[in-house]
């Protein structure tokens, strides 16, 4: 893998350079007490000394809401107006390895048989620059789903690790897109020495040590396959209020809805984030709802992430970022649910 060094001033110049080149440049920005990924107009807006953004950067490939076509209507005729599916070059800085893993997990879903060009056209235009974690908390469990807080290759195009001196980042370029970004701004990237590589190694070890929550998921999928009905579901998810916050912050939740906004003259259809935990997700027009009670909806969330998606697309639909636990208004902790399942699986119950 190509490796380089970039110092903090040059990282600011890189951001500046991309803004000047017309790229939509996104970074964590402090908004009130939280950090959010937002487009920045100057490098000074970007905050890299931070924990994790409130929402994953999924929205830069798959916005919370977007028009998929509009139309105008006259007496007996309708004219459809396609939306522009060419998207601007975008570079997202400062995401964590867990967030960088999200898009690669979702590619298979957005590609099978029918390609969602809203996703893939943006994907082609977007580069991700991830950073080794500097903080973690009890909700983090990335290492239990095969990721790591210092991993360069979870899906980012460039990965940056801040070295001991606090001034220089060790740069890894795992993809062609990342290498191209380096070659576009050659003066900003300096050669990395063997001692830099060693320093990156120890910084990575330090980051790995931040993750204290270790889950044994080895038997979870198998248990889920034979426990669609189990007392655990109701017991653990009775407090779920079905707000959907978990899905909206998740890097891998992909369920969506269509809604029409219309006047008699015309309208627009939008594709909006949705969640299997919201009560009308499977509600039929007839009033029948196959998931008529909250624990059935929460069960779908766990089943989809830790069994169905793996069976279907070969990947766990979770990056262990912990957002759904951290931000849940009723402190429903996904890691605790998984721990309970693992314990049941281990005890054969």
């Amino acid at each position: 893998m190509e490796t380089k060094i970039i110092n903090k001033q040059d990282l600011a110049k890189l951001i500046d350079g991309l803004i000047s080149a017309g790229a939509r440049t996104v970074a964590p920005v402090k908004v009130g007490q939280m950090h959010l990924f937002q487009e920045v107009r100057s490098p000074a807006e970007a905050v890299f000394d931070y924990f994790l953004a409130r929402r994953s950067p999924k929205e830069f490939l798959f916005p919370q809401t977007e028009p998929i076509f509009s139309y105008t209507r006259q007496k007996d005729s309708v004219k459809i107006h396609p939306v522009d599916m060419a998207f601007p070059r975008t570079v997202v800085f400062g995401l964590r390895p867990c967030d960088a893993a999200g898009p690669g997990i979702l590619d298979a879903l957005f590609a099978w048989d029918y390609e969602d060009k809203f996703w893939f056209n943006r994907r082609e235009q977007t580069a991700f620059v991830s950073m080794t974690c500097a903080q973690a908390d009890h909700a983090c469990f990335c290492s239990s789903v095969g990721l790591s807080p210092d991993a360069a290759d979870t899906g980012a195009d460039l990965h940056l690790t801040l070295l001991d001196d606090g001034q220089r980042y060790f740069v890894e370029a795992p993809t062609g897109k990342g290498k191209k970004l380096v070659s576009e701004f050659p003066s900003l990237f300096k050669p990395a020495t063997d001692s830099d590589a060693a320093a990156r190694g120890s910084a990575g070890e330090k980051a790995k040590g931040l993750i204290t929550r270790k889950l044994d998921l080895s038997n979870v999928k198998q248990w889920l396959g034979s426990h669609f009905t189990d007392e655990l579901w109701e017991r653990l998810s009775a407090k779920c209020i079905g707000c959907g916050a978990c899905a909206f912050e998740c890097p891998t939740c992909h369920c969506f809805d269509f809604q029409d906004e219309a006047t008699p003259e015309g309208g627009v259809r939008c594709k909006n984030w949705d969640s299997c935990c919201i009560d009308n997700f499977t509600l039929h027009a007839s009033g029948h709802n196959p998931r008529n009670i909250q624990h059935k909806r929460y069960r779908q969330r766990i089943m989809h992430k830790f069994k169905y998606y793996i069976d279907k697309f070969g990947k766990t639909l979770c990056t262990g970022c912990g957002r759904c636990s951290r931000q849940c208004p009723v402190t429903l902790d996904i890691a605790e649910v998984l721990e309970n399942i693992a314990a049941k699986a281990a005890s054969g119950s």
Partner: protein
Amino acid sequence: MNSNGNQNIYQPKLIRVIDKIQETPDVFTFKWRFVDEKENEAFDFKVGQFGEFTVFGEGESTFDICNSPTQKEYNEFCCRVVGKVTKALSKVEPGETLGFRGPYGGSFPVDKYKGSNMLFISGGIALPPVRCVIDYCLAKRSDYAGLTILYGARTVDDLVYKYMLKDWGSRPDVKLVTTVDPGGETPDWKGEVGFVPAILEKMNPSRENTYVVLIGPPIMIKISMQVLGKLGFDPGRIYTSLENKMKCGVGKCGRCNVGNVYVCKDGPVFTYSEILALPQEDI
């Protein structure tokens, strides 16, 4: 892999309603053609596939294409008025423009059925998704052995496709049994009176060289399955079509996911043995 190039898979094509038939007080059939003639020539689908139909300004709903692909002049869908889109549809008149995406989903294996007896069992508004198979078998009549149709509804008024029932009933090469729920009969009703599974039991069909297409309300399916089980039918030879709530129709939006399948893409046609292998959600 994908076949849609740079197309927007969520954008409908325009279709025009060319005829509307009121089947029952709250069920309507719509006959339609694409507005663009070239689309009519290019359009093809398989027996049992569905479409996403847009009423502009109201939304999009999922309906089966309920005619056989051997019928080329126009296509049909049928719906009961229950929600926002179907209420709007009930007011749509011939000449008006709707949107269509499709055809989507898998189909009934009509080639595999060749040479076999076919037993069609259906209730209420579920005759349209069965009818596409019936029409196909009738269009290729010599490819199939005996055709038996059992269809029931709550009342005589609620029977859809009365004109087709008349036609099927008059054919010597089709055995048609119609029934209405007890109390749903009229003085001049000549069919059976009783729930579909009870009539099925009375008919005592042979499982020999027979495939079953069974679509109806969940309770009718459940009890009919018990009867077919008693009669020795193999669940692997019983086909149904699931009607989960869908939005995208192309395996992305997650709404119709049950177990390891996305009903829109992996179904909607399943054998009963495949359904028994799914988590038993109340679908």
